[in-house]
Each structure stands twice: as structure tokens, then as C-alpha cells.
């Protein structure tokens, strides 16, 4: 049987979920102290067949996404090398590496969804659960935390509470310790920031403006006093421009750059492909 039957899978997951809540299904015994692996305590459906390489006739892939993935694949001797750029592209369309996004990438790349999920679970910039469209990575590594990054992160996280559009994460060293404490807002580095800068930063994000232009890393001159033999003006601000996307369109951006304009309403992302013959499964 085909393992990728969306309806069955969805219902089985829902059943498991509710059984799990009511303690009917015993938790898989794990270390008492818990594991640091995300999802370690989620129930697993061991009866499920592994998903196969999706059937191109069944899976609808947005043409632009397909084109981008195929372009990436053409760059490498082995098509699998394009997996990261392809997942990044799919995340830009879907907001996160949803089962639907994974299925589409798997379909174009001719690899199994499991192969791609092993990647999305490994790399920090790939989201494995629905996430806000705008990403704010606050660096909380040593250099930044020496200069108050933890307070900055807390202030930012508090300020976006209940805001589903903004995905705030504390991140490992982003490589900008010269502007510590700093954050990467949709890929644009800003700093040094203090908790007082947070409201203005969020305002810029929501308005689709350049984020804190005064504080952008892109503008800064090198610190070494011996480097420049004469005075130079500051550099221009960092505008995200990805070929094919009109920079004039108010930016709806994600971690990997601008995203396709798409109103998702209440739901942040689709969970599964729509069931095609769902009636018979309602047992």
C-alpha cells in the first residue's frame, strides 16, 4: 500500500494524539531527566509505512518553487546537494518545513520525505513546526551575552508574546560580535541593540520598512584604524533583493529572504495534504 495516504495518516495521528493525552498509550520509556532531542516525548506510530518518493502526478508543486529547486539541482554533480537550498526555498513559500513543503521538495528532487526530514531536523534555520513569517534571531552566545544579550532576548520575546507573525529565537553566535548584542531580523544584522530598541524594531518589521537603518551592520566601517588610508562614507543599508522578486513590494520576509505574497489567515501553515477520499476513513 502507499504509505503517503494523507487521510489515513492524519486520522491516525489525531487518534494517537488524543490517546496520548488521556494516558491510554503508555509513553515510550525514556530517561527520567528527559531528552534534549526535540520531539523525544512525542508518540510515534510504529505501524505507519515509510513514505515513498512522491508520485509527481499526485503532488502539486508551485511552478516557481519547482523551477528554483531544479535550478539548484543543476549546480551540483549530485542532485542531493541541492537539498538545503531547496528546503530553504520551500520554507520561503510555506513558512516552515511542513509535511506539504517536504512532500513537494521530495517530489521534485526524487528523494524520500524522510531524507529531507532528517535535514530539517538537523539545521537550525529550517523550522520543523509552524513559525512566524518574520524571524528575529537574537544572538545569545558568549560575546553578545557579555554585553547584555540575555536581557535583549527576554525583552524581545516578551514584546512579541501572542504575535504569531514574528518568530523570535535565541541563536548561537551569528558572527557579528563587533555589534554585540545584536539580532538578525529576516537576515538583516542590526546592533548594538538594547531592550529599548525592541519596540522600534518590531514597528519596522510590521511596517515592512528597513529595520533600524541606523543600526545596520551593513553600514559600518571597519574598526581597524590602520585599514583605511582616507575617510570613506558609510555603506548603504542592507536591502533584501532576491532576483525575480520586486523589491518595491512591501516585504514579507522570512529567514532566507523575501517570501511569496500569500495570505494565510488564522492558520499558519497547512498540516497535511487535503484528504482525497476522507469519508470512508471516519471509523
Amino acid at each position, binding site marked *: 500500500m502507499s504509505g503517503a495516504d494523507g487521510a489515513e495518516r492524519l486520522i491516525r495521528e489525531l487518534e494517537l494524539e488524543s490517546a496520548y493525552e488521556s494516558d491510554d498509550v503508555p509513553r515510550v520509556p525514556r530517561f527520567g*531527566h528527559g531528552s*534534549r532531542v526535540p520531539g523525544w516525548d512525542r508518540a510515534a506510530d510504529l505501524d505507519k509505512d515509510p513514505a515513498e518518493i512522491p508520485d509527481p502526478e499526485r503532488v502539486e508543486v508551485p511552478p516557481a518553487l519547482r523551477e528554483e529547486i531544479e535550478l539548484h539541482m543543476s*549546480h*551540483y*554533480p*549530485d*542532485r*542531493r*546537494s*541541492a*537539498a*538545503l*537550498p531547496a*528546503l*530553504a526555498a520551500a520554507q520561503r513559500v510555506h513558512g516552515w518545513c511542513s509535511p506539504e513543503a517536504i512532500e513537494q521538495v521530495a517530489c521534485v528532487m526524487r528523494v524520500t520525505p524522510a531524507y529531507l526530514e*532528517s*535535514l530539517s531536523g*538537523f*539545521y*537550525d*534555520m*529550517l523550522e520543523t513546526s509552524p513559525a512566524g513569517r518574520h524571524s528575529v*534571531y537574537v544572538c545569545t*552566545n*558568549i*560575546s553578545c*551575552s*557579555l*554585553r547584555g544579550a540575555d536581557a535583549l532576548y527576554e525583552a524581545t520575546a516578551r514584546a512579541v508574546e501572542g504575535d504569531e507573525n514574528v518568530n523570535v529565537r535565541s*541563536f*548561537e*553566535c*551569528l*558572527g*557579528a*560580535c*563587533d*555589534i*554585540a548584542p545584536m539580532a*538578525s531580523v529576516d*537576515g*538583516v*544584522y542590526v546592533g548594538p541593540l538594547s531592550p529599548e530598541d525592541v519596540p522600534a524594531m518590531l514597528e519596522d518589521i510590521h511596517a515592512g520598512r528597513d529595520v533600524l537603518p541606523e543600526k545596520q*551592520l*551593513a553600514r559600518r*566601517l*571597519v*574598526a*581597524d584604524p*590602520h*585599514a*583605511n*588610508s582616507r575617510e*570613506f*562614507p558609510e*555603506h548603504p543599508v*542592507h536591502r533584501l533583493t532576491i532576483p525575480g522578486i520586486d523589491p518595491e513590494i512591501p516585504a514579507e520576509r522570512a*529567514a*532566507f*529572504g523575501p517570501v511569496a505574497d500569500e495570505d494565510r489567515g488564522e492558520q499558519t501553515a497547512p498540516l497535511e495534504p487535503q484528504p482525497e477520499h476522507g469519508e470512508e476513513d471516519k471509523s
Partner: protein
Amino acid sequence: MEASAASRIGPLLLADIDEPGLNTLEVYERRGGYSSLRKALAMDPEQVLAELEASGVRGRGGAGFAMGKKVSFLPKGSMDKYLVCNADESEPGTFKDRELMQKTPHTLIEGIVIASYAAGTNRSFVYIRGEYVLQADMLDAALEEARDAGYIGEGILGSRHSLSLVVHRGAGAYICGEETGLLDSLEGKRGNPRLKPPFPANQGLYQGPTLINNVETLATVPAIIHMGGAEYAKLGVETSTGTKVVSVSGHVRRPGNYEIELGIPSREIIYDLAGGPPEGRSIKCWFPGGSSSPVLTADDLDVPYDFDSMGKAGSMMGSGAIIVVDDSTPIMEIALKTAKFYRHESCGKCTPCREGTNWTVKMLERIDEGLATPVDLEIMASVQEHIIGNCLCVLGDAMAMPIGSMIAKFRDEFEAHMERARIAHGLGDDEMALTAQGTLGVPASGELDVGLHPPTREGDRAPGAHAGEPGTQKGGV
């Protein structure tokens, strides 16, 4: 032969780096860009390699391996050979490659083409970390220009050398900066390091011979060809030639990138260039080469900043990232941040690293919760010892070395912190013995041989506990 600031030559990599438009081909060429490439293509590949070897330039990414030697390891003959530029700059405290790629991407491209000519590689990749959006965009734009101008492609500048170049964006994983982890990631897998040997020079990307170099190393190549290897070797000190871009951060007044001649006293970098710690503070410790390097203290400020001197001082120059910590910061905080970082970034392939980083964090947290006793420091030190050298890559070592050095150098502070935490959590001196004996079950005296840092104060020891293997203990009450 010690270099000093007085003998400072003009910067090689950062020279006029803020000139508007340097990221474009027009300005770069006006400033003499790609002339080194023309010079190199007029020579034999062997001659170019000889220049690189004569320059004595050592890798700028962390390990400090001689670049010329690395190139010479690649087998000769016609086969698919690859050059990979490691731009996955993730070592905490390091941000030199970021500035180079953002402001003068053509220097890197020129270096890649020259190095590929010397190594006989025809395909090249720049693996840049996904967070560097601006830098990757700059590289992509520069690459487009270079391709149009014939610096990349078939028969470069009328020679018989051909090269393709792809900018590959990562997606956020520290381990992909490790060379074999990077190769796996570039092949589209999880970034798990590989067993070595075979080394990448023999079997690397797609199982072909692969040369992997850091951004700064490759960006130095045009300058070496321009000056001549022998001339370049006159810069710096005998075993560490040339200039280095040093990223200074943390508690200094002017954090940023500074290009220095290798071998100048570290004090000059931290105080004269970066301005030293803020008013009224003094240096408690500093990482000389990113968070993976063992910490040094204020006593080591006069150690010359070069590969071998740093090694002799018990640390390493690593990627050239100095992180300064002043006396207002508890060492516990630094240790915990460091350990948590490596726990998060451990790929999980090798047990000593996966478990060692995890348990080190747990033990440090125990200290903060007032549940630790001084013997925990012994256990922690022994965990570090058991990580070092026992994994496929050095990520675990990169935590073990700084944590080990912190325990060695700031033992008193760890113990004082423990004591304060115990009192704050309502645990007095009497219970300390009980905890050590009853729940930890670790030997109280010399039975536990950890070698690294033998305890100095007998009074800290609980009497009469039974022996047990460290690491098999169940913590907690």
C-alpha cells in the same frame, strides 16, 4: 625575531576596505584586482604552488595547517578534483570572513581561482553559513561579474584552466565548519563529520580529492602571488608568517576586526587596538582563538600573538578571535554559556561528545542549583579528559579544552560559587558531606584519578565515600 607595531606594514586584506564600490569588479580592477591571477596564469601551476609553500602561510580557519602543503597533498593527474572554500564562519567570537566577503568579495574569488590553478581543481564551492545573507548576496553578485569578465568559466583569460564556482548557502549548524562535516552537508546530508583517514585531499567531496581552505586563507593568496612567497614570508614571525585579521570582542571598548602582523604582543591587540576593558575594569580572562581555545589570564597578555607562541602558552590561536572577559563576570557564567553552546551544536554522532557536552552542562547547572560539591569539579575535569581525542572531530575537544582550563585556572572561584549556591538554597556545610557520600557515591580521596587538576584542599573532601566510576553515577537525590 619579534615583530612589533612599529614595524607594521600596510594592511594586506583590510587596505582601504571601505572604499565605496570595492565589492564591484570595476573598482576592484581599478585597484589592481585580478592582476595576481594574470601573473599566476602566466606561471606553471607548480611555480604557483612553490610560491604558496615559500610564503609559509598557515590556514586561517583554526587548525593552522600550512596551506602550501595542503595543496601539494592533492594527487596529480586528471580526475574530478574539488576546491571548497569554508565560509561557514561559526566559531563564537569570529567575524573576520564576514567583513572580507561583504566588502571585498572579488579578493576571495581571485584567491579561489589562483588556488584552484595551483591545485589543478576544476570545480569549486563556497560553503557560506545561511545566516550570512548579505555576504552571500555580495558573493553571488561578484561571481556574476567575474563570470561575465571571464575570470570564472572555461579557459580563464585564454589559459587552459577552467573553473566553475557555486555559492552554497548552509542552514545553520556549527558543525558544518568542520571540514568533513562541511563536505557531508555540501553533499546534501546532515553535517556529520567523517572518519579520517581518508583525508579530504584523497577522498573528499563526492569521494574526489578535495582542497578545503578558509576564506581568509584564500583571500590572502592574491597578495602572496603579488608580493612573491619569499617576500610574504618576511612578514610575521618564522613559523607564523604574514598578517592576520583578528576579531576582538567582548569587554573591550572598540570591538572589531584588526589586521595585525603575526607575532605582536597580545596586549597590543587588546589594549592599543581594541581599547582594552571598560573604565575601571580589568581583564579576568580571554579566549585567544574563539570559544574553543583554552582561556588565558591577564598574566599571559605579553605572549606574542602567533600560532606557536599561543600553543606554548597552553592555548591556541584558532581562528584569531579574541574574546575578552572582564572581572565583573563570574567564570561560572562563561563556562555554562560555552558548554551549552557545544551541547547544542554537537551533531550526536560520537558518544563522548554527545554525552560529555550534555553532562557537563548538567553538572554546571548543579553547581548553580547548590547541589554540587567540590568533587564534582573532579568529575567534570575527568569528563573533559575523556572527550579529548576520542571523537571523529574536535567539537567535543573544543568544549573540553576551555572548560578544563577554566576549572584549572579558576578553581577557587568555582568552589566559592558552589558554596554560595549551597547556602542560598539552604544547604549547609553538614549536608555537603552527606551529599558527597550518599547520593554521588564517588570516592572522596585520591582513588578517583583524574590527572588534570588534583585537588589542593583536603578540607573540601568528604570522608569515607565508596569508590565508583565517574560517569555511571545517577545524579540527584
